[in-house]
């Protein structure tokens, strides 16, 4: 899995690539920790290159969601493949998260 | 007839082989486990230490105080005839530390903790919990046996020291109360003849006994077969075998100490 960060105005776009699984989700968590430390409050996670996400990856996203909510921030997702979307739907997480079709829609009135 | 004896002997050899294999397995996990990053969790070792040690304190103290009292009265009966009542103190202390306290404590713990270990592991075996651990790629020896083994290895000597003190207290009660020995003189005589080696030979014994109790308790538990009845059988077997082995090993170790003049 690769993690790339882009700064756009006051929002951060986190572009993920590859497979998010039990072995690399701690890396993702570390990247999120960094964002929290830098006091970034608006985060968009771009899933365009993600082929698969497992429970530990989902749990990492849920934790980030809770942390951002606590400091008054927000977490949005974009560019999700249908396969990955299915995983969110199975776990009923799609109701909890804000999922957008593309980055622009996600950044709109952020 | 001959074939029956043969079958019995083969059964014993199989049992012995199983116990030795478990012993090797335990040492493998204790010695090499930490290097693989897979050691038993400290939390479960502490849990077992509390169960084996802390919960046995009262019964151990109880048994050893009364043994001290009985021992003092029995030796006083003999020593009075020779006018050497004062030596009750050293006799009680030495025989307790070298022999009685390690053995009695081990027997009490075998009856209490050893049986509980085989009952618990036996129940886990017959309800497929052991198999479940294996299918989850969790080694039962590392996960279940090693914590119990370490707990007994540490707690039995500790309990034995406590038993020593309790026994000496029992002797002291008889010596000062009934035999009218001056309390200070009693304690002086106790420690005058009690040497450090008397204590550590007792502790070496209790280390060995701790291993026996854990090994037999776990082996019988893990090899339980056939439902609730099997658990009952395993528990009984573990206590009986532990008792026999404790006495046997006690005899062997005592002989070694005796002939090597320790």
């Amino acid at each position, binding site marked *: 899995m690769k993690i790339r960060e882009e700064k756009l105005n006051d929002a951060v776009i986190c572009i993920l690539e590859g497979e998010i699984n039990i072995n690399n989700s701690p890396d993702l968590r570390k990247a999120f920790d960094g964002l929290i430390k830098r006091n970034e409050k608006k985060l968009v996670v771009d899933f365009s290159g993600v082929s698969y996400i497992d*429970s530990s990856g989902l*749990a990492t996203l849920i934790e980030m969601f809770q942390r951002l909510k606590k400091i008054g921030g927000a977490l949005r997702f974009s560019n999700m493949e249908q396969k990955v979307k299915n995983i969110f739907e199975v776990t009923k997480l799609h109701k909890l998260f804000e999922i957008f079709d593309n980055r622009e829609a996600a950044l709109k009135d952020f | 007839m001959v074939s029956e004896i043969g079958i019995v002997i083969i059964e014993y050899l199989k049992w012995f082989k199983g116990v030795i294999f478990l012993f090797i397995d335990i040492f493998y996990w204790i010695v090499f486990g930490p290097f693989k990053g897979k050691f038993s969790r400290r939390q479960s070792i502490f849990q077992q230490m509390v169960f084996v040690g802390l919960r046995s304190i009262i019964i151990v103290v109880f048994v050893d105080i009364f043994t001290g009292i009985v021992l003092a009265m029995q030796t006083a009966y003999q020593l009075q005839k020779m006018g050497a009542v004062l030596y009750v103190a050293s006799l009680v202390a030495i025989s307790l530390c070298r022999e009685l306290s390690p053995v009695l404590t081990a027997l009490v713990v075998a009856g209490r903790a050893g049986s509980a270990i085989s009952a618990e592991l036996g129940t886990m075996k017959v309800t497929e919990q052991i198999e479940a651990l294996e299918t989850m790629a969790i080694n039962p020896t590392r996960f279940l046996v090693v914590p119990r083994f370490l707990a007994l290895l540490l707690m039995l000597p500790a309990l034995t020291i406590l038993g020593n003190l309790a026994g000496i207290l029992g002797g002291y009660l008889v010596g000062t109360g009934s035999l009218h020995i001056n309390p200070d003189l009693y304690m002086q005589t106790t420690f005058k003849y009690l040497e450090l080696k008397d204590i550590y030979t007792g502790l070496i014994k209790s280390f060995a006994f701790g291993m026996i109790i854990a090994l037999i308790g776990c082996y019988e538990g893990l090899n339980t077969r056939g439902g609730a009845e099997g658990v009952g059988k395993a528990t009984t077997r573990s206590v009986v075998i532990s008792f026999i082995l404790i006495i046997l090993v006690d005899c062997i170790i005592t002989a070694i100490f005796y002939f090597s003049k320790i």
Partner: protein
Amino acid sequence: MSVKECKAESIISLRNVSKFFQGKTVIDDVNLDIYCGETFVIMGCSGSGKSTLLRLMTGAIRPDKGSVALKGRDIAKISSEELDEVRKTFGMTFQYSALLDSLNVEENIALPLREHTQLAEEIIKIIIKMKLSLVGLRGYEEYYPSQISGGMRKRVGLARAIALDPEIVFYDEPTSGLDPVVGGVIDKLIKDLSVKLMITSVVVTHDMHSVFEIADRISMIHKGKVVEVGTPEDIRNSKNEYIRQFINGSPSGPIDFFREDIGMEDVLDL
């Protein structure tokens, strides 16, 4: 949540597998292929060898003859360390759920996560909540196995089996001893996991209702042999006498309840 690539090849394959116990043949020259993503049901009477077959697949027992391959690796021939690596990729539920009595629901599900991953405790807690809500048992984290019902225990067992997002889940009698409603709930869970998460399921059962509910393919085992393998439709329309008797639950037929080799003759000898 493993919606992984599923290739159309067998994920489990048994070749000429035999197993003997004390001179008796329990599994007799079995050949089976189970494909990725399907729900494969093994049915048969008690003592037919179906549980033994399942244990051969999980590596709990090793075959005396033949090979058992999981994802192309022969688990009968690999070392126990390698077997443990394979075991981390599948989950199993047990007939009596086999939860550890000394641990509560949360700790039971956390066990494989704590033992095999480096995940932070916070993440593990969230995963447990996700798995529990998947089996409909949120709020039971603090309960001990002895404090909940048999059906709940089985569901917790299922949550534990899928804790590490396995590719294969083995179910040993998932609905036995449950009332029809809870049985239906479990059936739906198995189906859901299989369809939505593309988990390959291998189910051992003799619950006929559940068999036709969940199966993609069914195999009938009798006296350690595979009698027939087919889709639920094939099995329902099968002319095979064993299968007809099993489906109808009739006491007389080729599956003999009374052993022919030991008749009543010996009674007269007394």
